[in-house]
Structure formats: structure tokens, C-alpha cells
């Protein structure tokens, strides 16, 4: 019996990665000696009219093969992913593509960019929510939004905003549960605040990269580090370039991180464009600068949180406004505020909840998915207000949360049934780990002041997409698992192999995972919304069960028993009621010989194949009040407690002690879960304390490199003994082995916990993040001035 569930099995890809033998997308270029290299010329202005664009000198440079511009009429730019749309007459963010060059070498391509002549006429730009959402904004990002035909519900689940003050407001959603106004009247205390968040980039260490081979039949074979070989990349290539499905093959090698940011194909589309134009094999690697200025960022949110509570801490009403700042996302069919604002309905049982949300376009890089899908931004303000409520009412911050938290069997404000929530244990475990109830010991001398804080979070799983899996049982008793989910680095291939090992009662080393090749591996959409363990996991379990069923049938037929009398254990079949009790399965596969061959039964070299398909139930369209019993699928939860210190002279924040706990459902591999917790906490410390896009006067990101965009290093994290990663599962009934996803919820509570620790340390309340030293110092000075 080999039960691998809950075991810390070693990563099956670790050897490839510690030896450098595993290939990433950019490592494929050496296989193509006649490769073309692509480079892009990009706009330095957030908003400008293109008066002149002359590529003739560049075209004459020896070694330049093709130049494409946004004015090229035979390119279907309208259908390109937002960040890959090149400017036609007007550039609407700094970093938007102007011209794309394919040349025989990188040097030639770069030289060609210098020879392209562009004249711009600068136009006014709007870079944030506040500038973009006023009645007469200086810049309108998508002037045709209002007149464009609204797509169907499937394409745009949301409404056009009712009271559209600014033409940059492009999508809306509202929820009206209970009676917020009446409930608010009964509150003993109401706290109302507005919160902002910064714009950030996932900054995976591998830049976006694609190599597209132009095949002899006019098709494309592409290696890229984008997510979703079937559901995202292949689908987009076929749609945009109107290519036959049998002429597009997408292969995903190892991926150097994604964190959601590679769910949008952009480098892939531009690379295929140039391969088709030149009929050559081409390679395109974004520069690090382009990863900030020209690849999707997250979407910041502005939230207005108004929470009313009784004196005993019972929350009676929540009135909530949220705006997603989505960048220069023209032809918007995605953003309405609904995704982010789901964060307001995950954790607390507040039957009187009203939400009014929208999306706002700006002249900044188009936004897309990033770990948490807007929930870190959406929940920051709520958690800060609940901490403030606890402080005002002198209630323990753990107690106030336990009092108001959703419990299993409750319905959230949407009306959805909660089937798994392990949050109370997460909360308590974190509080205990940092000794939340004991005040911080203050340093005797110096400017550092310490404080502690705690927060919780939930994140929905979007019921989206179909996962398929195939388990092949070979005639020698080895197994291949074929899947097409993404391995961004989280270790999913290992977890899925553990599931197959468990079902087939087989050691891990007999299982090989084959992944991410549209010609070979079955359909999956992508790894998004923390769905892969659940979605692909269920498909893998089904495929393994199907394979076992077929093996049982074969064995049963051979020995004249009913299949229910057969058990499969690794390479053995155990029989009941037969003259044979145990049989070596590989021995049943007949060799091909003129004396034994047949067109039925097991044959050497021909595997027994099991297939699994899993697709969660679809969303139930919400009613006029925004309510439905199925808006999302299930919820992952986490808590975080922090002890931080603040330098009163510089405003710097240091995390000295941190505990994070995940409700993962039953973890398939607890060591991999720990890795997700630790990585999530680090990522969150980065974006809550330091990371944000800064702009120069042209509206261009001024810190578009890894020196000035300050990602957390080894020195920004507490020491290992002061970092507790804890797992407190509540099994998900419909998850494989009770598991659910967890990678996104981890980041969410880190920020509000830090914010509370800052308050406890120096008595200031932040209303946004990143909580940079400059901002904290400013707040400290304002507080001192007010004294």
C-alpha cells in the first residue's frame, strides 16, 4: 500500500533544476542556428499622437528581415491581447509597442530600432484612478467604449456603469444583500475609510520568452514560458491568426515563475506574428524593462470601506465601494470590479452587505492577473478597518474575527453555501506563534519601535475550465501521466504524481509526468485561481481510476473472474476466488509474435490508457441584486500575524517575526504547501512594503529595473526561526483527497497585519500601500505635528 497523500515527496523536477539541465524557453534558441531575433520599439510617452513613423532607414540595414508597425493594416491588432496591441496613430501608455523588428542578430535588431524615426505630439495623460475618474478627464483611454456593441454575458459578466461620471469608467458590478441602510442605523460604531494601493509587477525572474519555429507545412511550433498551452496560447494563436488547430503546436518547457502574470499571451502572439511574416524561426525575449513597461501589471484598487458594528463587536453592515484601475485596457471585456470585490464576501458573515464596483482605465500598462486576482487590494481596507474596530472597542483582534467569521454551512453575502473553512484554526495558530497577546518588547535605545498585528483573508476559486488527464500503464509496469496544467514552479507535477502513485499503489519513481505539449498532452485551460490541485487533480484521479478499471477488466477476462475480484497494486494484480491469487501484470502483456498476436487483450509495447475529464459546475447568473447560490466555486483561507518594527527617524519597516497559516484543505504535499506559504509571505512583504510603479513626467515607469523596483531580498525577511509556516486544513468535500488550492490567499492578510503592527508601534494608521519609508515617515511627522 503506497499512500502518498500528505507526504513530503521530493520534487520530481528538482534534479533538472539543480543541475541546470532542465530547459527553459530561452534555452531553446541554440537549437536553431538560423534564428531571427525580435526587438520592439516602444513609446516613451503615456499619451501621444504619432505624427511620423518612418522605418525606411531601418529596413535598409543589412540583416533586417521584417519590420511591422501598428499601422500595418493586415495585422488584426484589435484582437491582440491588450499589452500586445501596437499603437496606430496614438500611443496610450508609455511602453506600448510602436514597431517590431526581426533581424538576423540581436545587435542588428537593436541597431534597427535606433534607425526608426518617430515624431510624437504629447497629449495629456491620466496615470491613476483619481485623475482618470473625474467628470472631464484630461485623457479618455477608450473613446469608443460607450458606442461599441456590448458583448454577451459570457464575454462580459457585468454591466455598463449606471452613473458613469467619467468616460474612463468601463464596467460595473453591484451587490445588494439585506438592508444595509437600516442595519447601519442600528450600529453603535461606524468606521468609514478610503484606501488606495500601488501598481505592481509580478517580476518573475525569467522574462517573457518565446521561440516559434516556422514549420514546413506553414504551421507553428512554439516553446514559450506562457501559461495555458491549450486553453490560452493555442486558443489565442488559432483565433488571432485564423490558423488550423492541427498547425499550431505549443510546448511549455520549465517556467521561470508566473504568479498569474503569464496567463496573458503577449510575447507569444508577437513572436508568432513575426514567424508568419518572415516564414522563419524567430525568438523574442522581453527585456527586464519591458517586463515592467510593456507586460501586464496587477490592477490596483481603490476601496471605500464603511463597516458598522455593535458594541460587542458584532458587525451589522458593510457598505463597500471598489474601483479596479486597469491601465490602458481598451475594448474591455474583463474588468467590472466583480473579481476583486469577491474578497469582501469571503471571510465574514455580514448579511447586510452592499457593494458598488467598477473598473477605471488609465494611461498605464494594461493590467492582468497577478496572484490573488485583486483580493489583496480589495481586502486590505476591510482588514484594516476591522483591526481599528477591535482597537476602538477594546476587543481582541482574534475575538472580533471569530465572532463575525463565516462557518461551515453558512451562506456568504452572495448566498453561496460555505463547504470548507479552516480559518479559525489558522487565526489562532498565527496569534499563538507570534504571542499576539503579549506586547512587544521595545528596544531600550534607538529609533526602532515594535508592534504586532494580525489579519485574515479568503480568496475565491473561479469555476472555470476543463481539465483532462491521461494515465498510461505501460507493459513493463511503468506509468506515464499526461497533463497540460502549468508548472509555474509550485510543484504541481509532483503532487499529481503523488495522486497517481496513491491510486495505483505504486512508488513515485515508476511514474513519469509528461506535460504541456498540445500535440501530446490532453486539454487543460491553465493554472489559475489556485485551481490546479483541485481541477487537474480531480481529472488525474479520474484518469487513474479509469486506468485501474481497464486493468482490472483485462486481468479479470484473463482469469475468468468478475473485475470486482481484482485489485491492482503497482505491478501486481491480486485476485479473489481464482485459482491464482497474485499475478505479475507485465507478464500478461503478450509479445508480438506470429504465435501469440491478436487484436484484443494486452500486448507488449501498448499501454493501457485511462482518461479523466473534470470540469466544475458553471456559475449561476446572479439576480438583479447581484446574488446567486453559485458565483464562485470554493474558498481558500489564510491568516497572518506579524511583529514589525518601525524606525521613527526614517519610516523604515522591518518584519522581525511572522506567522502565516493556510487552510489548504487536505494538503497533498505539506512541504510544497510550506513553500507556497513562505514564498507568498515574501511576495506580500514586497508589495505591501516596497513595490510600486513610479513615473517620470512623461508618464513612463521610472523604476523599470530590479534595482529601483525593490523586490524583497534575503535581508528583508525575518530569520528562519522567526518565520512560522503553518497548515490548518479543513478538507474540501469535492477536492481530490479533500485538497483545495492555497497559493493566492497567503499574500492577502500580510499587509493589513503589518499595518496594524505599525499602528501598535508608532500610532499611525496607513490608508494604502506600499508602506514605503517615505510614506510612513510622512505619517509620523503628521502625527507629531498634530500633537
Amino acid at each position, binding site marked *: 500500500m503506497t499512500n502518498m497523500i500528505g507526504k513530503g515527496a521530493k520534487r520530481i523536477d528538482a534534479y533538472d533544476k539543480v*543541475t541546470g539541465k532542465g530547459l527553459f524557453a530561452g534555452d531553446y534558441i541554440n537549437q536553431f542556428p538560423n534564428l531571427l531575433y525580435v526587438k520592439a520599439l516602444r513609446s516613451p510617452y503615456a499619451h501621444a499622437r504619432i505624427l511620423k513613423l518612418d522605418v525606411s532607414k531601418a529596413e535598409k540595414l543589412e540583416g533586417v528581415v521584417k519590420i511591422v508597425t501598428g499601422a500595418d493594416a493586415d495585422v488584426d491588432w484589435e484582437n491582440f491581447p491588450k499589452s500586445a496591441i501596437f499603437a496606430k496613430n496614438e500611443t496610450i501608455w508609455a511602453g506600448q509597442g510602436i514597431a517590431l523588428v526581426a533581424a538576423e542578430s540581436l545587435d542588428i535588431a537593436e541597431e534597427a530600432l535606433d534607425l526608426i524615426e518617430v515624431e510624437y505630439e504629447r497629449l495629456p495623460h491620466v496615470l491613476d484612478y483619481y485623475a482618470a475618474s473625474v467628470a472631464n478627464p484630461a485623457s479618455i483611454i477608450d473613446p469608443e467604449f460607450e458606442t461599441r456593441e456590448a458583448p454577451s454575458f459570457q464575454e462580459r459578466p457585468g454591466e455598463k456603469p449606471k452613473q458613469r461620471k467619467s468616460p474612463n469608467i468601463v464596467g460595473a458590478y453591484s451587490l445588494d444583500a439585506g438592508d444595509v441602510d437600516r442595519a447601519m442605523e442600528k450600529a453603535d460604531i461606524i468606521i468609514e475609510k478610503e484606501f488606495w494601493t500601488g501598481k505592481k509587477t509580478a517580476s518573475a525572474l525569467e522574462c517573457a520568452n518565446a521561440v516559434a519555429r516556422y514549420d514546413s507545412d506553414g504551421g507553428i511550433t512554439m516553446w514559450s514560458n506562457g501559461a495555458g498551452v491549450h486553453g490560452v496560447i493555442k486558443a489565442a494563436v488559432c483565433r488571432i491568426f485564423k490558423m488550423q488547430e492541427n498547425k499550431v503546436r505549443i510546448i511549455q518547457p520549465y517556467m521561470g515563475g508566473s504568479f498569474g502574470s503569464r496567463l496573458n499571451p503577449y510575447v507569444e502572439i508577437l513572436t508568432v506574428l513575426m514567424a508568419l511574416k518572415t516564414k522563419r524561426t524567430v525568438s523574442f525575449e522581453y527585456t527586464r524593462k519591458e517586463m515592467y513597461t510593456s507586460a501586464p501589471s496587477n490592477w490596483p484598487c481603490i476601496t471605500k470601506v464603511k463597516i458598522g458594528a455593535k458594541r460587542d463587536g458584532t458587525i451589522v453592515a458593510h457598505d463597500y465601494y471598489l474601483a479596479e484601475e486597469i491601465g490602458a485596457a481598451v475594448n474591455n471585456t474583463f474588468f467590472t470590479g466583480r473579481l476583486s470585490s469577491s474578497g469582501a464576501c469571503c471571510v465574514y458573515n455580514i448579511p447586510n452587505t452592499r457593494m458598488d464596483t467598477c473598473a477605471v482605465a488609465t494611461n498605464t500598462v494594461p493590467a492582468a492577473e497577478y496572484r490573488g486576482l485583486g483580493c489583496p487590494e480589495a481586502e486590505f481596507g476591510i482588514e484594516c478597518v476591522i483591526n481599528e474596530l477591535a482597537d476602538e472597542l477594546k476587543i481582541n483582534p482574534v475575538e472580533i474575527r471569530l465572532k463575525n467569521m463565516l462557518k461551515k454551512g453558512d451562506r456568504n453575502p452572495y448566498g453561496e453555501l460555505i463547504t470548507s473553512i479552516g480559518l479559525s484554526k489558522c487565526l489562532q495558530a498565527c496569534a499563538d506563534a507570534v504571542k499576539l497577546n503579549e506586547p512587544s518588547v521595545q528596544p531600550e535605545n534607538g529609533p526602532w519601535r515594535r508592534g504586532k498585528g494580525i489579519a485574515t483573508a479568503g480568496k475565491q476559486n473561479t469555476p472555470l475550465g476543463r481539465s483532462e488527464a491521461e494515465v498510461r500503464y505501460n507493459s513493463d509496469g511503468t506509468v506515464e501521466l499526461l497533463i497540460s496544467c502549468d508548472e509555474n514552479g509550485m510543484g504541481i507535477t509532483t503532487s499529481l504524481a503523488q495522486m497517481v502513485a496513491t491510486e495505483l499503489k505504486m512508488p513515485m519513481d515508476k511514474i513519469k509526468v509528461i506535460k504541456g505539449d498540445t500535440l501530446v498532452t490532453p486539454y487543460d485551460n491553465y493554472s489559475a485561481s489556485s485551481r490546479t490541485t483541485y481541477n487537474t487533480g480531480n481529472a488525474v484521479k479520474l484518469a487513474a481510476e479509469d486506468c485501474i478499471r481497464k486493468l482490472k477488466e483485462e486481468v479479470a477476462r484473463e482469469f475468468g473472474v468478475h473485475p470486482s475480484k481484482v485489485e491492482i497494486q503497482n505491478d501486481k494484480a491480486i485476485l479473489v476466488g481464482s485459482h491464482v491469487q497474485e499475478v505479475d501484470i507485465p507478464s500478461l502483456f503478450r509479445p508480438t509474435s506470429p504465435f501469440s498476436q491478436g487484436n484484443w487483450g494486452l500486448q507488449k509495447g501498448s499501454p493501457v490508457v485511462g482518461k479523466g475529464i473534470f470540469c466544475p459546475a458553471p456559475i449561476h447568473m446572479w439576480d438583479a441584486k447581484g446574488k446567486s447560490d453559485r458565483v464562485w466555486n470554493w474558498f481558500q483561507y489564510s491568516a497572518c500575524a506579524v511583529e514589525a518594527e518601525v524606525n521613527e527617524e526614517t519610516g523604515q519597516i522591518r518584519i522581525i517575526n511572522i506567522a502565516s497559516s493556510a487552510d489548504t484543505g487536505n494538503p497533498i504535499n505539506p512541504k510544497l504547501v*510550506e513553500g507556497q506559504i513562505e514564498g507568498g509571505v*515574501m511576495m506580500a512583504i514586497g508589495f505591501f512594503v516596497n513595490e510600486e510603479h513610479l513615473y517620470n513626467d512623461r508618464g513612463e515607469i521610472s523604476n523599470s529595473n530590479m534595482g529601483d523596483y525593490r523586490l524583497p531580498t534575503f535581508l528583508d525577511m525575518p530569520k528562519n526561526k522567526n518565520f512560522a509556516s503553518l497548515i490548518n486544513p479543513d478538507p474540501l468535500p469535492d477536492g481530490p483527497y479533500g485538497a483545495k488550492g492555497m497559493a493566492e490567499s497567503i499574500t492577502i492578510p500580510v499587509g493589513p497585519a503589518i499595518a496594524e503592527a505599525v499602528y501598535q508601534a508608532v500610532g499611525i494608521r496607513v490608508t494604502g500601500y506600499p508602506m514605503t519609508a517615505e510614506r510612513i515617515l510622512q505619517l509620523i511627522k503628521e502625527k507629531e505635528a498634530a500633537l
Partner: protein
Amino acid sequence: MSLVYSNGKTVRVSLEVNGKKLTADVAPYMTLLDFLRKEINLTGTKHGCDDSNCGVCTVLVNGLAIKSCTMLIMQANGKKITTIEGLEDENGLHPMQKAFVDHFSVQCGFCTPGMILTAKAILDENPHATEEEIREGLHGNLCRCTGYVKIVEAIEAVRDGEYNPGCACSKEV
């Protein structure tokens, strides 16, 4: 054929990579990173930022951890280079590689070669490095996945002799 065109101007460079002596004529502005990746196909060394900030291109140059994206090829002339491909030998993985496998210090794997080489350089120089010293030594190597916890764990395990004691001190120095 050189993948990086040099407009005809080349310089001759001689260096030792993973114990093998090499001589090549390359563009004078070529970086050591491009030489390793594009000229001699050692793609275990990664490219992440071009300005020494991310650390995925780290290699050992005469035993010191160096970011190869900002070292011009002639600065490596006459030097001994170790890349991640040079760590595994006939006896198997280097202790640091083993420790990274065992301690789940690897996620996406893109920072891993640079991390392992820098970690090796730290312990080669200071076999008893404390956690603070390990963190200080590695703060030029970014990782976006792990939160650094399990990387530190692996290095401490090697330091504490859990992997073939004595091996932590390199053959190179």
C-alpha cells in the same frame, strides 16, 4: 558560427570552463553570460535582468561568485569559470545540489543555479557562516518563489556537515 554578430571585430579569449580549456574569437563587447549561453551552450546559467540585480546569471570566477551578465568576456580572460553544469561529477551531485533537492529549496528553478553557486562560494570562503552571513552573502540573488526560507535551510545543512562532511570546502580554492 557566432550567434552574436560582431561587425567583424573580434578578440581572442582563453579561459577554463568547468575544467576544460577553451580559446575563442568573439565580439569584444560580449558578456561572459552570452559567451556561456550562446557560444558554448551552457544554458544552466540564466539571464534575468542585464544589470546585476537578480543574480540568476551568477557563476564562479576563480572561485568567487560573479554576475556574468555584467562581466565582459575579456575580464574573464585567463580565469577559471565554474557554471552549474560543472558541479555534478562522477560521484553524483555536489552536496549543495543535494541539499537543495532534499530541502525543497527549488521551486520554478530559475534562480537555482545562481543560488547554488553563490551558496557554494559563501561556504568555501567561510565554512562556518552564520544565518546572517549566509543571508548577507546571498542578498544579491533574488528568488520570487521560495521566500528564501528553504534555501537558507539547505545551506545550513551543508554547513553543518549533513552532506558528506568536508565536501563543503571546494576543490577549487
